[in-house]
């Protein structure tokens, strides 16, 4: 089954929510069972956070989170086992499961999105989706740890984890989705559109990297498949719009851009009869291409046209269709660049394309060999910059550019429809009564009140109920 970052986040948050609903009371045994897992949990969280492509060279938020999680990950946060009485306690299964999921997310994020500019709001959203469940786990462990002198240091570390997690948990859920949620690990053996596309991309890369010489049929097949892939992405996006998964005003321009790329690849796939580059197709490409087309027919088509939204939704087993369309465009864009490079090398490099001798024009090219070939009606090597060759190159370049543009528009649909209002750092300050103060409201804002009064976004913290305020300190 295809695992996506979004899918793993669903699992992580469900586990955290389950933990938050557990009744907790201090227990040395349970605390030990949790404490033994925390270094791995912290390490997995750090890996995931570090694998989110950074928007800037210096990232103060990441440095801060790292400094909080590092001591736990290095197991420097708790007295050594030898200092404590021996206890044979198995590690807590729920925290282990969270650790595994976080590790899976970290692995997926390491794949990254090729040629996509990092998006700061998507980074913030993903960080909050990673740290909010960790906050819940920290609060749960805090509630379990007995308030003993030996636990003071680890409790303090966990309070820091809960605190930084809470700060990120305040990012509203609606503002968190982003392009990185679409990153997926696809089992190549499964019978799915994702698997067929990945297999095809791998085969395309192999075919285009061959040293044995490219064939015209290979290049035309890749271009035709790209047209079909764009058609599939447009049909999937249309379905997402029809089913209300994607707003019409956001999705329609994407469909138009993808349809434009679809048309341009169809044009790039047809070579005039007068141009010929012999050779067979790479066997892997041939198989993957046929499999891709068959999977698209089985999944997205009904007879001679694209299937209706309900049919497609049923066949896609309830997948997020906009995300599936974006993944299709990522694949298409990667292959498009490779195809265009190959065509450029073909027509302007050392490879030798043939052309019909009778269609060659220009007195400069005429010699005895050409005259003989024209009389016999055979193929001759195409001179460089021959107009029909330039036309094929231009078609591929236009199609690749259209695909890149369509992919960018498509990726934008992963963002929330409303742009988050981001507080600017306090670069401007007031100088009041001889003292520096950051500009801003002096009374607590609504989110600040939520931070202290209620569990963030309804997940519950699972931690102890807030203790009543102590006596105020007066000089």
């Amino acid at each position, binding site marked *: 089954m295809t695992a996506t970052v979004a899918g793993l986040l669903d699992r992580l948050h469900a586990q955290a929510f389950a933990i938050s609903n557990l009744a907790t009371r201090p227990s040395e045994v349970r605390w030990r069972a949790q404490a033994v897992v925390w270094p791995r949990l912290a390490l997995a969280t750090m890996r995931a956070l570090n694998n989110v492509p950074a928007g800037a060279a210096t990232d103060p938020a990441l440095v801060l989170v790292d400094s909080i999680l590092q001591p736990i990950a290095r197991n420097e946060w708790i007295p050594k086992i030898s200092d404590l009485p021996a206890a044979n306690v198995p590690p807590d299964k729920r925290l282990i499961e969270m650790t595994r999921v976080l590790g899976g997310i970290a692995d997926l994020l390491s794949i990254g999105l090729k040629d996509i500019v990092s998006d700061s709001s998507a980074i913030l959203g993903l960080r909050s989706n990673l740290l909010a469940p960790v906050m819940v786990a920290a609060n749960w462990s805090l509630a379990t740890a007995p308030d003993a002198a030996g636990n003071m240091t680890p409790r303090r570390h966990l309070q820091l984890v809960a605190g930084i997690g809470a700060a990120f948990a305040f990012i509203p859920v609606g503002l968190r989705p982003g392009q990185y949620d679409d990153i997926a690990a696809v089992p190549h053996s499964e019978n799915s559109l994702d698997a067929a596309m990945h297999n095809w991309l791998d085969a395309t890369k192999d075919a285009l990297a061959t040293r044995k010489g490219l064939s015209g049929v290979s290049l035309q097949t890749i271009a035709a498949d790209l047209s*079909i892939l764009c058609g599939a992405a447009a049909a999937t996006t249309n379905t997402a719009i029809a089913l209300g998964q994607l707003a019409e005003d956001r999705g329609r321009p994407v469909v138009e851009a993808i349809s434009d790329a679809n048309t341009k690849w*169809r044009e790039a796939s047809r070579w005039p*009869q*007068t141009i010929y580059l012999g*050779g067979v197709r790479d066997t892997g490409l041939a198989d993957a291409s046929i499999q891709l087309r068959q999977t698209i027919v089985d999944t997205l088509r009904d007879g001679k*046209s694209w299937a209706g939204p309900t049919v497609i939704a049923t066949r896609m087993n309830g997948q997020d269709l906009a995300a599936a369309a974006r993944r299709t465009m990522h694949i298409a864009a990667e292959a498009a660049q490779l195809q265009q490079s190959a065509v450029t090398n073909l027509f302007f490099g050392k490879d030798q394309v043939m052309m*019909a001798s*009778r269609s060659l024009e220009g007195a400069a090219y005429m010699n005895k060999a050409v005259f003989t070939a024209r009389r016999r*009606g055979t*193929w001759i090597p195409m001179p460089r910059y021959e107009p029909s060759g330039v036309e094929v190159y231009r078609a591929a370049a236009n199609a690749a550019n259209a695909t890149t543009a369509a992919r960018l528009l498509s990726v934008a649909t992963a963002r929330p429809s409303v742009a988050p209002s981001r507080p600017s750092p306090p670069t401007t300050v007031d100088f009041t009564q001889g003292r520096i103060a950051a500009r801003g409201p002096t009374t607590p804002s609504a989110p600040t009140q939520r931070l202290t009064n209620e569990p963030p976004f309804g997940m519950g913290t699972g931690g102890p109920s807030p203790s009543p305020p102590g006596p105020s300190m007066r000089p």
Partner: protein
Amino acid sequence: MSLSTGEAYGHLRNAAWHYLSIDDDGGECVLLGAACLDVEDAFEKAEVIPELVQDEGSAEAAIKAALASLGNGNGPLVPALRDALVELAVRAGVR
């Protein structure tokens, strides 16, 4: 391979050109164009060199012409090429 297989390949290339030139909303023509390329690959494997042939005006007519050309062909691989062309013709509704 005989001249007729080269002609059949030439007609097949024209059929692919026509299918890949049609802008249909349903996207069926590009699938048929890709299917033509699959058969072209079979001709390449048989080491057939395409001939420049008269354009028949439509993909369907070009497929018919390719079948007709192959009818006169001889050689050990011609039956396999004919089978591939017939399969394409059936899919395209020509047969």
